């Protein structure tokens, strides 16, 4: 606590974290236009949350996103994927259909284009980011428990 090295790590990570998060969101929402997408963007975003929790401590990390919230978001992201597929059925096309279901295609190359793919990438991003955080918390908590578990 309070050593100089700690301060360097903390201040740097506090400075860097927002930029990593913005970059993560950028990669997620440009999933249909550029390399990357839901998975890589989500991983980047999740890594920033893990970074903060690592350089400070678990309580500060949990203030950003708690374990419970992370696991609810995790289920919600995947559920969103399924629901997008079902919406296509409701619109009268096949499961997970995109243009034929009437999702707005927009102008190719624009940010808001590609219909369902945009939506699905977004949900994927949420899912992956929260999965990374959940995994991290699970490993940390597993370590806490291991003293008395076996």
């Amino acid at each position: 606590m309070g050593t100089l090295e700690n301060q360097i790590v903390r201040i740097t990570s506090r400075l860097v974290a927002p930029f990593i998060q913005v970059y993560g969101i950028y990669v997620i929402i440009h999933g249909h236009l550029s390399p990357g997408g839901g998975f890589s963007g989500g991983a980047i975003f999740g890594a920033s949350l893990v970074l903060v929790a690592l350089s400070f401590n678990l309580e500060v990390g949990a203030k950003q996103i708690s374990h419970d919230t992370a696991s609810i978001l995790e289920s919600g992201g995947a559920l969103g994927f399924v629901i997008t597929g079902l919406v296509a059925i409701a619109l009268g096309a096949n499961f997970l259909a995109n243009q034929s279901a009437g999702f707005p295609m927009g102008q190719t190359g624009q940010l808001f284009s590609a219909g369902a793919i945009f939506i699905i990438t977004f949900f994927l991003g949420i899912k992956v980011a929260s999965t990374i955080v959940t995994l991290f918390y699970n490993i940390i908590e597993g370590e806490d428990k291991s003293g008395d578990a076996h």
Partner: protein
Amino acid sequence: MGLTNHFPALILAILLGISFLSPILFRWVRKASAPALLLSLFLALVMAVYLLIQTTQVGEFSYYMGGWPPPWGIELKINLIRAYMLIVVLAVSLWIMVYALKDLEHELKTDVLGWYYTLYALVVASMAGMALTNDLFNLFVLMEICAISACAIISIKEDRACLEASFKYLILSAMGTGCFLLGVAMVYMVTGHMNYDLVNEYLPVAVEQYPNNMFAASALFIVAFGTKAALFPLHVWLPDAHASAPSPSSAMLSGLVIKIYAFGLFIVFYQIFPRSLLDSIPLNEIILWLSSMGIMFGSIFAMVQVDLKKMLAYSSIGQIGYVFLGIGLDDTIAMTGGFYHLLVHAIMKSMLFMCAGVIIYTTGIRQIKQLGGIGQVLPITMIAFTIGSASMIGIPGTGGLISKWYLALGALEIGRPIFVVIILASSLLNAIYYMPIIVNAFMQQEEFAYEVKAVPRQMLIPLIIGMIAIVFLGVFSRPVIVLLENGLQLFF
């Protein structure tokens, strides 16, 4: 038409949806999470029955995911055999879940129950997907989902034996999926397609041009499905995994998960591979002898076990051999027997594991030699155990006889009476290790030596349903046999 058109995709969507929903439900409306899972399994089953009826009327039909026809999109295909598999998977998993609701409270910590439902729904969804899909890469992904969630429903109990067993299972089944992926890559290399029908169309030419490639691919497929389905020399992971898991997981894994891979091998052999490949390499001969060895050795290993669940697990190695025997005999009658056994064994082995679960729940004992006199205190459970064992042995009036009968008929028809001998010998072996348990349970004079809790009704009702189903399948086998015969005609 309308919504009914989308049933193939909706089955998967509902099962995947409930698997993602149940952690949320478990957190917020805990009471609703188990009924929601049961309801969605039931809905999926209703849809599967509808698909079966539809396919008897219009024959084979396909569903294109996202409206993209192959070779671009993923195709789901329904025919009689696939609908049959789908119904077996969904009906048996619904039935196991009814039992599991009570048993899991006892075996798991409360806060992981929601996750168990998630994993359970994922296993069921991936198996339903394997029955439906018509795309090799899609099959690979589903195999991976199934393998990982199957490992997780073993290790969720978090004791030492479970963790060790599921780790072993994870490594070996990862090897299995690895082999499968390599095999798919080889097939893709020479045909340029993933869709079963397109691969099948281009393979005859490819086999002539690149025979070595296809030899390697078929070897890889046999190893992949053999590992996953515990075909004899690749079975080493099964006994630990199935014995140490919570009883509903054991029922699920032994009853369904190994079967769906046998079905996968069937699809690869008879839908993807062209006839010329099967005729030029003795692939079926390999399957035949491996499965025969499995039938014999599985039973022999089972005899020396002292732990009840471990004995049942070894018995599964023998029983999956019958399904493979049906596939390897390459004859409609034998294959009918194999597929019938797939259903019968799914029911009887699940039921036996449920019986073991009830015994563990009420008394806490697992050793076979401690079971003397248990018939007096747990009569219904032990009657169910008796009927399940009778079906394993193949006593008339139970489903086990019918499948062995058809297997033997098929073996005779293609002039391989040696396999009839193997079937008969293994029935005797089965009798050797099942009968003593039953005799001890009912005939022993002394009182049962251990304390017994009352059996919850929720656990007894599934057992009673199972007994009825096994006897029903033994007496009225005709409808299922006719369905299978019609379904298998498509592949010959």
